[in-house]
Every structure is written in C-alpha cells, then in structure tokens.
C-alpha cells in the first residue's frame, strides 16, 4: 500500500497545489463579495439592501453542488452564445473548471461572509466613524482606515470557519473535472484497486489543510486581541 502511495505521491502533491491555488483565488473573491455584500446590507438604499439580502438567502439556501453545476454549465451556454454573436463559426466556449469552481465556491461562502462582515462592521463603535468624519476624512478613507481595520478583529472567529468551508468545498470541483487530489485518487483507485487507501489519503490532506487554517486563525485572533485582552 505504501509503495502505491509513493508512486502517486507526485500526483497528490500536484493536486494539493491546485487546491491551494483554488483556495487562494476563492479566498480573495470571498472577501470581495463579503465586503460588497456587507456594505450593501448596511447601505441606506432599500433596493441595495434587498439585493444583498436576496444574495444571502439564495446562496445559503441552495446546495453548493447545484450552484457549482449551474455556474459551470450555465457559463458555457452563455459564453458560447456570446461568442457566436461575434464569430458565428464558434463551436463551444466554456469557463475552465478552475475559474468556474473558484467563482462558485467564493460566491457561496461569500454569502455567509456578508453576514459575518455586517455584524463586525456594526461592532465598530459609531463614535469612531463620527470622529473620522470630524477629522475631515473622506467616506472612502473612513471605510478603509477606520472601519475596516477595526472590524477584522471581530470578524476573525467566524471567518476562520468560512475558510474551512472554502477548503472543503474545493473537493466538489473535481466533479466538473478539475484535476486536484480527488481526481488523483479516482485515477489511482481505478488502476491499483485500493480505493479506501487513496480516498483516505485525500481525507488526510484535507485534514492537514483545515488544521493549519484553524491553528493560524487561532494565532491571528490572539494577535488581533493582544491589546484588548487586559480589558476583558
């Protein structure tokens, strides 16, 4: 069994790298969707608030897998139709599984992140914002220099959970053909007929990912709260 694992270790390493890449890309996108959504939920405009709430309800109420399938196959239909308008001889265009997958899981976890960020923004003392305005800071400066740095500390605990969901959701992307560790395990299992060992390896790799994230987030939390610990 260990010989088999050794034989496929290169492929598993490569697959892990793909997962890491998907994770990083979707993490950035998640933060973007989360911040936009949270700002929209706190906006004075009723239509904007409703749109942000609809985003959360829809993406938290439908299965992750279904969103992924919809985005992957849907984008293929849309892109093909658009391409045919420009070049009528086009046969087929699609978003690569990498990008469709990263987009899908970031949208799903981003929907949850909007709630986290919204709560964190509300946790920043209103007086801080007023003080910033009184100092003559522009709205964008108040957002990036006053509200954002202070809200991170409050968002960290939940955000760690979101990061773990993100990593675990990357496994789904193998279904639409991304060549990551699940794909490697499929390949390996079909040739060496040791499916349990192969999928167990995949599980251990994911466990390593989530353990590292949890440990890192714990340290970050401690660091973010280093000046407030005495106050509690």
């Amino acid at each position, binding site marked *: 069994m260990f010989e088999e694992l050794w034989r496929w270790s290169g492929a598993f390493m490569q697959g892990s790298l793909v997962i890491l890449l998907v994770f990083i890309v979707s993490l950035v996108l998640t933060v973007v969707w989360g911040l936009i959504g949270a700002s929209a939920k706190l906006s004075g405009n009723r239509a904007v608030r409703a749109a942000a709430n609809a985003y959360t309800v829809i993406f938290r109420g*439908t299965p992750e897998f279904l969103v992924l399938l919809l985005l992957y196959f849907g984008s293929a239909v849309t892109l093909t139709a658009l391409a045919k308008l420009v070049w009528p001889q086009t046969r087929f265009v699609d978003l690569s599984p990498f990008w469709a997958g990263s987009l899908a899981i970031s949208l799903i976890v981003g929907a949850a992140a909007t709630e986290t960020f919204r709560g964190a923004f509300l946790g920043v003392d209103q007086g801080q914002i007023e003080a910033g305005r009184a100092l003559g800071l522009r709205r964008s400066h108040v957002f990036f220099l006053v509200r954002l740095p202070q809200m991170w500390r409050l968002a960290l605990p939940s955000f760690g959970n979101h990061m773990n969901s993100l990593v675990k959701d990357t496994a789904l992307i193998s279904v639409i053909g991304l060549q990551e560790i699940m794909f490697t395990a499929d390949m390996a299992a079909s040739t060496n007929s040791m499916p349990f060992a192969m999928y167990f390896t995949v599980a251990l790799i994911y466990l390593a990912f989530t353990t590292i994230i949890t440990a890192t987030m714990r340290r970050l939390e401690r660091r973010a709260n280093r000046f407030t610990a005495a106050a509690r």
Partner: protein
Amino acid sequence: MSFDLPLMLLSFPRLLEGLSTTLRLLAFSLVFGLAIALATSCARNTRWLSWPAEAYVYFFRGTPLLVQLFMIYFGLPQAEFIRTGPLWPLLREPFWCMCLALSLNNGAYVAEIIRGGMLGVGTGLKEASWALGLSRFHQLRFVTVPIVLRLCLPAYGNEVVSLLKATALASTVTLLDVTGIARSIVAETFAPYEIFISAAVIYLVLTFFVQTLVTHLEARLDRHAQR
C-alpha cells in the same frame, strides 16, 4: 440565448420525482445523525472513550463530505470483511452509503453544537440543583436538557439546512435525487439555467420550511421566558 419558460414548467414534475429520495436521505440522516451525536456527547464525558469521540469529530468536521462519501461508497468494498460481513446488503446500496456518510458527517457537527450548549449551562445552576438534592437523572431531565435544547436549537436548525444541501451530493453516487434528476435532464436538453434554477427553487422552498419550523419551535420553547 433565450430562457425557455415552458421547459422549466415541464421539468418541474420530473424534478419533484427526486424529492422523495432527497427527503428520505434527509429524514434517515437526521435521525441517525442525532443518535450518533448524542452517543458522541456521552462518550466525550467518559474517561476511556473521550479520545475516540474527539478524533471522530475532528476527522469528520475537518474533511469534505464528498471525500467521506467516496471512502464509504468506493473505499469500503476494498476490505474483504466488509464484502463478506453482515452489513454488505446495506453497504452495497448507494442510498445507504449516502445515508451513512451524511449521518456520520451530521453527527460530528451536531456533537459540537451539543458541546457548545452544555458549556452554556451555568455552574451556578448545577450547584443549585445539587443543593436542592436532585438526583443526577433529575438534574439532567429538569435543568440541563431544557436549557441545552433551547441553546442548541438555532445552530441545530442551521445544521438541518446544511444537511439538506448536502443531500445534493447523492447524485455523485448514481442516486436520482432532485439534483441527480436535474443533471440527467440537463444532459438531455442542455438547458442548464432553466433546469438547475428550477431545482434550486425546490431546495429554497425546503430551506424555507425548515427555517420556519425552527423559528416556531424557538418561540414555543421561549413561551415561559420573561421579556
């Protein structure tokens, strides 16, 4: 590209055929998952069983459900004793493999919720019930459980929704649940928007039902609470 509304309406009855599989998976996994979670919670408080319980929760919360499912569905038959064992008639069926994966996954998350709820019961309450001379059973029955139930309900409701969404993975092991039927219709018509959005609407309605139910239950448990 156009949006084919008649196709959407036509596909609805077929998608609803998958509803029974989705709901059966949900129901079985809820019951088994809760049983596993309760057993795990009890094991965590014992001396010798606490570390296997911790390991179980750690493993199933730290790995993706899809991997767990594939380990069970494709992986378990690798072992000779599974194929000759008494559980083989069940483990041969994708439905029961999916149920097992969902239950184990759900059990780990719910065990963690129960632990959180247990921590929410104040030490003062335990001391008070001890001082009143309540037996351990009566303390559990009249003090701990009611409080833990109320504390856990919101998180448990979210977990039910997660479980419902997780049933969508059934189609990866050839089951024809709502998502599975949606995938087969898309393979025939190649109209992903119409079909997958119809399926999403079904899940959204189910999610809404679950959430309404939980809200009602919360209000019921709160009926004696002072405002």
